């Protein structure tokens, strides 16, 4: 209810009437749900269809470049916190002088909008990117990265409007290219740990922008059941990639070597896989296949169901693991193909998960395959024990080499499918 009411404002229908369903249908018996619908929801539906809603009002807001508060550091921070404009940590006061420093690091017009971001439907302006970048503690020279990130956020393929969904997934940003060295990103030990300014402050910027411009605030449009805080930005270890002859993550999105890029996608969780050992594929790979399988249960609805081929598992590999795999003569594409072919589960288990844990009406892989809605690999026989993949094709796997140079670990992320699909954008440095 609260979400529908809050979202309707950004859609230009602040008076859109909503009928209430008591409690959560997911934990009600059929009889209880029927009683609740007939005794409460039905009257609401009838009223909404037959009675004219109240006239819509529009609230006054500051102008795009207005000063909203003047004072000392504490006063500024109190104002921003009290007005839902900060994440609870102290912000750097976004003064005109600071914002203009950021704007000098882009050729884009400050008034240019990269798109309207739902649910608040606010313009993703270059100006607002600079303001939030200042607040997050970024340095002015990070501005081209921030612009690329908001271009990605505004890309319809990413689906920013889903960022307040129940699972509370959080975006991971991967950086590739010369910008890693130029801005001093951490790409070795503790790569996902705070403590490195570009990795940390740009990660914080992402969440501040989601709050302030897209409009995702807890208790309003952000309906994460538990949620997470923002993720520290991950940079790939391109030194290690060159050594083993692998292309970077950005190549999977069509970018030439030497391009600086950002890649975003949303993940509901993940797990560190320790002590990945073995000098041969037979010794090592079963551990990795198992690690991927264990990250995915209800998310299979993004393979067959709500998402249809939009599940994109991400695996971070420490450089030693990538070097060992490359030593077998495997390319990145080979590793993806092996994951596709061996990280599989019995078909009956796949169907059971969809049926029992996602509350979808019907799921039958044979029927979906015969109708041409999913690849034939999901139904190459009627054997319920046949193994089926977790994704539609090998290329759906994403890989990034990063982390401690001396440890043999991987990290597998549980992807949120169509509700945060991977998008990559080039980072454009200013010409002047």
């Amino acid at each position: 209810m609260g979400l529908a009411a809050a979202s309707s404002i950004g859609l230009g229908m602040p008076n859109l009437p909503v009928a209430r369903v008591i409690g959560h249908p997911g934990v009600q018996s059929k009889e209880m749900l029927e009683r609740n619908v007939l005794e409460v929801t039905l009257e609401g539906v009838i009223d909404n269809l037959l009675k004219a809603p109240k006239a819509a009002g529009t609230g006054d807001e500051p102008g795009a470049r207005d000063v909203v508060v003047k004072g000392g550091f504490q006063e500024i921070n109190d104002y921003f916190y009290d007005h839902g404009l900060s994440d609870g940590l102290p912000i750097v006061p976004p003064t005109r002088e600071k914002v203009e420093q950021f704007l000098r690091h882009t050729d884009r017009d400050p008034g240019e909008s990269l798109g309207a971001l739902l649910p608040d439907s606010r313009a993703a302006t270059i100006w607002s990117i600079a303001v939030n970048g200042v607040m997050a503690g970024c340095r002015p020279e990070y501005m081209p990265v921030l612009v690329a990130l908001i271009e990605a956020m505004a890309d319809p393929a990413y689906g920013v409007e889903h960022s307040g969904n129940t699972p509370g997934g959080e975006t991971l940003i991967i950086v590739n290219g010369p910008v890693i060295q130029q801005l001093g990103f951490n790409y070795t030990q503790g790569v996902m740990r705070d403590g490195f300014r570009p990795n940390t402050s740009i990660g914080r910027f992402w969440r501040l922008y989601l709050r302030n411009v897209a409009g995702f605030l807890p208790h309003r449009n952000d309906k994460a059941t538990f949620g997470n805080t923002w993720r520290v930005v991950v940079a790939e270890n391109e030194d290690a990639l060159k050594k083993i002859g692998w292309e970077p993550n950005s190549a999977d999105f069509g970018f030439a070597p030497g391009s600086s890029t950002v890649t975003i996608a949303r993940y509901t969780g993940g797990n560190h896989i320790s002590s990945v050992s073995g000098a041969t594929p037979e010794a090592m790979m079963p551990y990795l296949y198992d690690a991927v399988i264990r990250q995915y249960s209800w998310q299979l609805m993004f393979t067959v169901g709500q998402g249809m081929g939009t599940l994109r598992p991400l695996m971070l590999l420490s450089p030693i693991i990538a070097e060992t795999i490359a030593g077998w003569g495997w390319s990145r594409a080979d590793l993806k193909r092996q994951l596709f072919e061996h990280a599989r589960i019995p078909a009956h288990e796949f169907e059971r998960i969809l049926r029992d844990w996602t509350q979808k009406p019907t799921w039958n892989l044979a029927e979906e395959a015969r109708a041409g809605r999913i690849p034939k690999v999901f139904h190459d026989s009627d054997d319920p024990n046949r193994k089926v993949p977790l994704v539609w094709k090998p290329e759906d796997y994403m890989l990034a080499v990063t982390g401690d140079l001396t440890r043999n670990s991987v990290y597998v992320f549980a992807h949120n499918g169509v509700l945060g699909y991977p998008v990559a954008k080039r980072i454009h440095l200013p010409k002047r």
Partner: protein
Amino acid sequence: MAGNDGYYEALWPRSPRQARVKPLAKRLDTLAGKTVAQVWDHVFRGDEVFEFLEAGLKARFPGVRFVSWREFGNTHGSEEREVVAALPRRFRESGVDAVISGMGC
């Protein structure tokens, strides 16, 4: 203020809303004899909720007719943009007078 807390003039970190307020459709005088579309995002047991609502509305409004959610596709998922964009045309084709869209949470 005393001390070294500084002085700042802080800018608004939001930006103007792009959506303009849209008028809602005129409400109906009655549902009797009208055609009501069901639109569903395939979550939160909407299939059952629509079944109960349909029974309840039929008992109250003689001649009310329903176009099932099965006719329109899933409004939440990988095909949502295409599905939502096609709704006005699909409603016209089906002679729809009113729409019930669910399920939020």
